[in-house]
């Protein structure tokens, strides 16, 4: 069975476990939708924004020396957007109403993130699914330690890094 279906089952289960949850989305760290259960939202846009926010969040934890990225909570006047790491390659984003039990949102979000990480790790086979164009899993498995040390969301991070390096030669002169 495709990983997307299993992840979608997990998202549906989340909806029954967290009252006042309005939507959920699992995406890869580079912003591709894995599965979504979020009516009234555009999943592709949300996945892309999640990837961008993840890049910033990862730099924040890095700059503040707080270790690896775990979760990101954003609160608007109408509710919460919470993003949880699901292994090194996927993320889980949850949308909830303002009156949600944030404690429960965190508990279930963390658990679900870990479960999605397992699903993604066991289901992604060579030449299958959406990631057929990615390197074979033999490489993935061999590179497993480096994957964990490699920052999540490296791709969106690179763009803002360049300007910080450019002014240096000018000040040196």
């Amino acid at each position, binding site marked *: 069975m495709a990983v997307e279906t299993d992840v979608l089952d997990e998202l549906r289960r989340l909806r029954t476990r967290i*009252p006042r949850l309005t939507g959920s989305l699992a995406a890869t760290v580079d912003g591709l939708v894995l599965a979504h259960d979020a009516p009234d939202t555009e999943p592709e846009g949300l996945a892309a924004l999640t990837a961008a926010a993840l890049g910033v969040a990862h730099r924040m934890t890095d700059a503040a020396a707080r270790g690896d990225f775990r979760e990101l909570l954003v609160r608007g006047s109408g509710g919460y957007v919470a993003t949880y790491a699901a292994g090194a390659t996927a993320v889980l984003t949850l949308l909830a109403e303002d*009156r*949600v*039990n*944030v*404690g*429960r*949102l*965190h*508990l279930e979000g963390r658990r679900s993130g870990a479960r999605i990480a397992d699903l993604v790790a066991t289901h992604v086979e060579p030449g299958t699914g959406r990631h057929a164009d990615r390197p074979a899993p033999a490489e993935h498995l061999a590179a497993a330690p480096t994957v964990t040390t490699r920052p999540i969301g490296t791709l969106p991070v690179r763009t803002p890094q360049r300007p910080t390096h450019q002014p240096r030669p000018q000040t040196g002169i």
Partner: protein
Amino acid sequence: MANTETALKECLSSIDGATAVALVDYTSGMALGTLGGTKDFNLEVAAAGNTDVVRAKLRTMELLGLKEEIEDILITLNSQYHLIRLLKGRGGSGLFLYLVLDGSRANLAMARHQLRRIENDLEV
């Protein structure tokens, strides 16, 4: 007047049979402070779960048209008592104290009395 940390410490030290205590914000389900608890008894989980208990009771009272306030909620398990005491006034609204008591060592009447006293002294 006692701050959160002192109040939680006093709960564990002055109430016989108290094994864990938490001050919880039931608008968010997050704990403002916890003391005691073990690996098997995660107070963060207890805070989130008991938030639902308090919310359910408040909602039920609203549906029944009861214009009263919850003073405390007692839950009796086989070997434990769980006591939930809602805070009143002084910016303490929306909070509750959650106390776990060992059933064999606790004196329930005394525990409720002590918890009321600690709640009155607590300044969040």
